[in-house]
C-alpha cells in the first residue's frame, strides 16, 4: 500500500524500528514513529519552556508557574535548557520535514480562499491541498524563524558579560515577541488537531488517519498515495452510506 513515505523521503531509522505503526483497513499511514517521537519531544519541551518562561515574563500574573519548577532561581536556571531541548528536537523535525514543507504555487492558491477555510463554507478542503496545507506550512516556517530568534537572543541573555547591556535589552524584547507569536499560533494548532478537525490527533499518536480524513482535509495527498480521485471516492462513500430507500408503504 502506498504511504505518506512516498511523498517525502523518509528512510526508516533506529527510532522507527523501536516502535511500530499499525495501519488498519480504511486507514493511511501519515506519520512514522520517528516523526511522532520528535513531535512529542518538541511538544513537551515547548510547554516546559513556555511555562517556565512565563513565570519570568510576567511574574506578577504567573507567579504560580515558578513553584512548579522549584522556585524562581531554579526556573531561571532550567528555562534555557528547556528552550535548547525544544529547539534541538524542532531542528531535527525541520530537517525531517524540509521537503514536504516547501512552499508551492498550490499553497499560494490555498491562501486566496483562506476565508472559506475559516468559515467552513465548503465541506471538504480545496482539491489542491497536499500533505500539509498552506496554513500548516506557514506555522512551520514561523516556528523555524522563531527558533532562530530564540537561540540568538537567548544566548545573548544567557551570557550578558560577553554581549553587553544594550544587546541584552534588545534581545529581551525580540525573545518576548517570538514567544508571544508562537503562543498565539499554538492555540490554533492544538485546536485544529483536536476539536477543530476531529480524527486528526491520531495522526500524531497512532500515526494513521482514515481515508475519509485524507480526502476531506488533504485531497491532493489522498490522490498521490492511493491513486484514486478524492471527489469520486467521497461520492462512492456517500452512496455506500445512504440507506436504501424504504419500500413503498401500503395501507
Amino acid at each position, binding site marked *: 500500500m502506498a504511504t505518506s513515505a512516498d511523498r517525502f523521503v523518509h528512510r526508516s531509522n533506529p527510532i522507527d524500528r523501536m516502535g511500530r505503526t499499525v495501519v488498519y483497513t480504511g486507514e493511511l499511514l501519515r506519520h512514522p514513529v520517528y516523526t511522532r517521537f520528535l513531535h512529542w519531544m518538541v511538544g513537551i519541551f515547548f510547554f516546559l519552556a513556555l511555562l517556565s518562561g512565563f513565570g*519570568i*515574563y*510576567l*511574574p*506578577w*500574573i504567573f*507567579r504560580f508557574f515558578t513553584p512548579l519548577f522549584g522556585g*524562581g*532561581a531554579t*526556573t*531561571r*536556571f532550567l528555562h534555557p535548557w528547556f528552550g535548547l531541548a525544544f529547539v534541538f528536537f524542532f531542528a531535527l523535525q525541520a530537517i525531517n520535514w524540509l521537503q514536504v514543507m516547501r512552499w508551492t504555487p498550490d499553497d499560494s492558491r490555498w491562501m486566496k480562499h483562506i476565508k*472559506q477555510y*475559516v*468559515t*467552513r*463554507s465548503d*465541506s*471538504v478542503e480545496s482539491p489542491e491541498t497536499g500533505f500539509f496545507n498552506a496554513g500548516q506550512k506557514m506555522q512551520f516556517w514561523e516556528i523555524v524563524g522563531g527558533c532562530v530568534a530564540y537561540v540568538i537572543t537567548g544566548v545573548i*541573555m544567557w551570557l*550578558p*558579560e560577553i554581549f553587553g*547591556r*544594550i544587546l*541584552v*535589552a*534588545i534581545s*529581551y*524584547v525580540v525573545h*518576548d*515577541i517570538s514567544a*508571544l*507569536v508562537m*503562543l*498565539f*499560533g*499554538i*492555540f*490554533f494548532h*492544538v*485546536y*485544529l488537531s483536536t*476539536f*477543530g*478537525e*476531529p*480524527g486528526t490527533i491520531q495522526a500524531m499518536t497512532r500515526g494513521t488517519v*482514515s481515508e*475519509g*480524513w485524507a*480526502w*476531506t*482535509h488533504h485531497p491532493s495527498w489522498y490522490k498521490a498515495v492511493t491513486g484514486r480521485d478524492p471527489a469520486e471516492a*467521497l461520492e462512492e*462513500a*456517500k452512496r455506500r*452510506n445512504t440507506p436504501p430507500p424504504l419500500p413503498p408503504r401500503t395501507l
Partner: protein
Amino acid sequence: MSDRGTLRIQQISAHPGPVAGEGVQRQDKVCKLIDTTTCIGCKACEVACVEWNDMPFQTTYFDNTYQTMPDTDWNYWNLIKFNEDQHDNGSFAWLMRKHQCMHCEDPGCLRACPADGAIVQYSNGIVDFQQEHCIGCQFCVSGCPFNIPKFNPNTKKVYKCTLCSDRVGAGLEPACIKACPTGCLHFGTKDDMKFLAENRASQLREVSGFQNAGVYDPDTIGGTHVIYVLHDATKPERYGNLPAKPRIPLSFTVWKDIFKPIGLFGAMLGFVGVVMHYVFEGPRREQPAPPVVRIDPPPPPAGKEN
C-alpha cells in the same frame, strides 16, 4: 543585606499590587556626596567597605595602574577609578572617582528585575538587593546605566553596594564615609548634600579656576542618592565612563510595563479565537458526515453566498 525593620519600603521590583508601608512614615532622602577634587586615592573607603561587609578578598593583578582591579565585583562594591587625564598642553592629571552604586531615584536595575522583591527601594532612596528573592537572570545588569550589579557564578545571585543600609537604618553613616581621611566624602540628607556640593562647585569655579566645575546628579533618572562634585561637569565621561545622560533601556520601561501585558492579551486572543470558532462555526468533520437533520439558522438563499 538590609535592615527592613527600620527602613520603610517605597518600591519593590516586579511586585503586584500596592507596596505595604509606602508613605506610612516620613523619611528624609539620604545622599552620599563625593568630592572628586579632594580625593587622594588612598583607598581607605575600599578597605572599609570590604571590612564592614565582611567580604572575602579577591585576587587581582597588576595592569600598570594604581587601580585595585579593573572593575567592581560581586565581593568588591567600591572602587577608586584612577583615570589618567591628558591635557591639551601635554600635562596630566589624575581624575580619581569613587565608583559604586549611585542609588538612582529611578533605578534601572529595579525596573529591569523580573523577580518580586529581589530589588527594593527604601523611602530614604537607598536601592537594595534582596538576594533571597533574586533568580539570577542578570537583567538588572542590563538595566543599570552604571554597570554596577555583579553576578556571583557560585551563588547565582547578584550583589552591589547597599549604601550600608544596615548602618543607615541604625542611624550611622556608611562605612566608607567614616573611613575617608580627607573629608571628601559626606553623608546626610539629599537637600543638605546638594547644598554642600553646589557651594563647593562654586568655590571651585570662582576661587580655584575650574570654570566648568559642577555637580553630577543626572536628572535623566530623577537624580541619584550618590552625587559627585567634578572639576569638569561638562564631560563626566572623562571620569571613567560616567555617563552624561544615563538612561534605562526602553525594554525595561515601555516594553516591560506597557507592551508585555498588552502582548500577552493579544496572544490570548488566539485562545478566545479558537474557542469562539468552535462555538460559531464548529468543527470540519470528515466527509461523508452523518445526514444533516437541521441547520440553524437556515443557509442564505442561493446566489447570495459569499
